[in-house]
C-alpha cells in the first residue's frame, strides 16, 4: 500500500518545552491509524500540524505528495493543494453555529469548489443520509445531539472529498452503541480509499476499529 501521509521526526516546542518529540508515522490509503497516548502528549498537536494549523520546529510532513516544512505556517494561498487533500474533524465538532447542518456541509462546496447551490445541496443531502443524519439536515447545531453533531462534522469534512481524514477524539461524546456505529462508518470511508488518522483516548475503540495503533509516550 502506498503511504498517503508520511510524518518523519516531527517536533513541536512551546516556550522551550517539547510538546511533541520526533514523531514518525505513516498512514496508507484504506487504513485507519489510531494515535493514542495520555493527555498532553501531543496527539492534537500532531493532527493540527498535519492540517497546517500549527507550526512545527523539526521534521517533515508529506500528504499525498504535498510537503510541509518546519517554520511558520504558510499563507492560505499556498495551502490549496493540502486543503483539497486533508479533512479535519475537530474535537467538539466546531460546526458553524450560525448555519444549519445542511449549510455547514454545503458551505465549502459552494464557496471553495464553486458548485451551484443545487449541486452542493444534493451532495450534502447524500452525505448526511449516508451518515444517518439526513433527517437533521435543517437543524441548527445547538439542536443536535453529540453523536449527530459528530456525524454532521464528518460530513462537512468529507464534502470536498479529501483523501486523508484527521479526527480528534471522535468518540468523546458518544455512547457505546454510537461508538460502534462510528467505527463502521469509518471503515466504510476507508473502503472508499481514504486514509484515517484518529487521535483517541479510547483504547477499546482503537482495538476494535483501527488497523494500527501509534502510541505516544510522555
Amino acid at each position, binding site marked *: 500500500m502506498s503511504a498517503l501521509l508520511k510524518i518523519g521526526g516531527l517536533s513541536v516546542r512551546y516556550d522551550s518545552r517539547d510538546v511533541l518529540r520526533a514523531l514518525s508515522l505513516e498512514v496508507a490509503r484504506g487504513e485507519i491509524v489510531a494515535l493514542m497516548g495520555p493527555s498532553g502528549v501531543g496527539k492534537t498537536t500532531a493532527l493540527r500540524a498535519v*492540517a497546517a*494549523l500549527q507550526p512545527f520546529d523539526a521534521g517533515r510532513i508529506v500528504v499525498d505528495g504535498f510537503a510541509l516544512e518546519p517554520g511558520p505556517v504558510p499563507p*492560505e*494561498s499556498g495551502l*490549496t493543494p493540502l*486543503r*483539497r487533500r*486533508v*479533512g*479535519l474533524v*475537530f474535537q*467538539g465538532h*466546531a*460546526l*458553524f*453555529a*450560525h448555519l444549519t447542518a445542511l449549510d455547514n456541509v454545503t*458551505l*465549502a462546496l459552494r*464557496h*471553495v469548489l464553486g458548485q451551484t447551490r443545487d449541486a452542493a445541496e444534493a451532495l450534502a443531502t447524500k452525505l448526511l443520509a449516508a451518515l444517518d443524519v439526513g433527517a437533521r439536515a435543517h437543524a*441548527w*447545531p*445547538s439542536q443536535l445531539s453529540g453523536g449527530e453533531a459528530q456525524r454532521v462534522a464528518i460530513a*462537512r*469534512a468529507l464534502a*470536498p472529498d479529501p483523501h486523508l481524514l484527521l479526527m480528534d477524539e471522535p468518540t468523546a461524546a458518544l455512547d457505546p452503541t454510537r461508538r460502534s456505529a462510528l467505527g463502521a462508518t469509518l471503515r466504510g470511508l476507508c473502503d472508499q480509499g481514504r486514509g484515517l488518522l484518529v487521535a483517541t483516548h479510547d483504547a477499546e475503540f482503537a482495538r476494535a476499529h483501527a488497523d494500527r495503533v501509534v502510541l505516544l509516550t510522555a
Partner: protein
Amino acid sequence: MRFAGLLLCLLIQGHESPRLFLWGGDAEGGAPFVEADPANPSQVRGFDVEVAERIARGLGGNRTPRFVQVQWSNIDQSVERGDFVLGLSGVEDTPARRARHAVTLPYFEFREVLAVRPEDAPRIHGLADLRGRRVATLGSTIAYDLLLAARDSTGIIPISFDDDVHPYADLVAGRVDAVLLDHIIAQRALRRRGGSGFVILGTPVAVGHYVGVLARADSTLRDSVDAVLREAMRDGTLEQVFRRWSVWDDSQGALFEHVLRTNTVPRAAGPATGTTALAYLPSLARAAVVTLLVSMLSMALAVIVGLTLASGRLYGARWLRLLTTAYIEVIRGTPLLLQLFVIYYGLADVVRLPAFLAAVLALGLNYAAYEAEIYRGALEAVPRVQLEAGRTLGFSEMQILRLVRGPQALRYALAPMTNDFVALLKDSALVSVITVVELTKETAIYATNVGSWVVPGALCAIVYLAMSLPLARLARRLERRWGGRAA
C-alpha cells in the same frame, strides 16, 4: 464647616435677597443688549444692563442689580422658577408671553428686517420674493414665527439657528439666501463685517417691542417696574441709555410718546395665544421624521465606516492599525458638539456642506468610532476553532470573515448596536446647533411659544419612545432567535 457655609450661600443665592435685585438675561446675545464687559469679563454691559440698573434704582430700597446668566430661550421658564425677578435681554412682546407671565410695558421698538447678499438686493424686496429660498433666523422668536407663517403663504424655507451670529455668516457663505432678524442685530452683524457681505433692506417686515418679563404672580412688582420705565421715558434717562449704545432713533421717541400719552401698551406682535397642542402636531411630526432620517442615515454610515475601521484594526498592516486606532481615539476623546461645529463651520472655507449632510456626516463619523470598537470586540469573540474549521475547508481569510466570522460576530454586536442606535436617536438633538430642526428643537420652540415644557415635553418623550422601543424589541427578538441557534 466652611463647605456648609458655602452651600448655604449657594442656596440663599437662589432666592432674592432684600438688598439684591436679581435680573436675568443672556450675555451670549452680546452687545448692545447684554455682553461680558471686555475690560472686566466678570461684569456685563449693554443697554439692557443699564435699563435693569435704572429699574433697580427706581424701585428704591437701595436695591443692587445683579445679573443672572440664562439661555435666552429659557428666560420665561427661569423667571417663573424664581431664578430672578426680571428677565430683560431683548425679550420680545408677544401675546403668548403676555398671557402666561407678567410683562412690562414695551421700552424699545425694533424692526424685523431682511438682510440679503448685495447681488440679490435689486430683486428682493420682501418675504414674497423669497419663494423656495432659505431664510434664516433665531429660533423661538417673532421672526421665526413670521417665517413659519410665510412658509405656508409664500413657500420660503425657514432655517432656525441657535444664535444670531451664524445666520449672517451663512448668508455671506451662500448657505442661506436671506436673514430675518431685529434691526439692531442686523446692524451689529453688518458693522462686524466692516459694512460688506450683505445689505439690510430698508422696508421692515414687521415691528416689535422689547419688554421685561416677570413671573405671573409678580404683577404688583411689574406695575412698579412699569412706573419706573415711564419715569425713565419721561426724564430722558432711557433715551440717554439708548443714545449711549447708538440704538436711539425716531421710532423710540414715538413709542415713548405713545406709552406716556395713551397709557396703553401697543399691540404685541407674534402668534396669538391659546395655540393648542394639536396645532403643533404637524410640526412635531415633521421634526420626528427629520430625527428618524438623520439617525438612520447616520447609523448606516457609522456601520459602514465602523466595519472598515474594525477590519483595519484587526487585519490591516501596522500603519493602518495605527491610523484606525488614532481615528477612534480622537473621535471618542472629543465632544460630538465640537465635531459638528468643525464639520459645518470649520470646513466651510473648503467645502460648504448643507446642514443636513453635515449633521449626518458628523453623527455617522462619530458613532463609527464606537461601532468599530463593538465590531472589533465581537469579531474577537468568535471562537478560534470556528475560524480554523473554515481554514481546513479551504476558505481564504476574506471568505472566513464574510462567511463565518462576520455573521457570528453580528450576533454578539447586535445588543450594543441597538443601544448605540437608541443613543444616536437622542444625540441627534445636537444637530439643531447647525440649523437642522429636529424633534427636540421643535419641542423647544413649541415649549417657548406655549410657555411650558409639560405638554411639549411629554409629547416629545412619547415620540422618542415610539421610535426607540420597537427597535429594542426587534433587537431582543433577533437576539433570542440567534441565541437559540448558538452552539
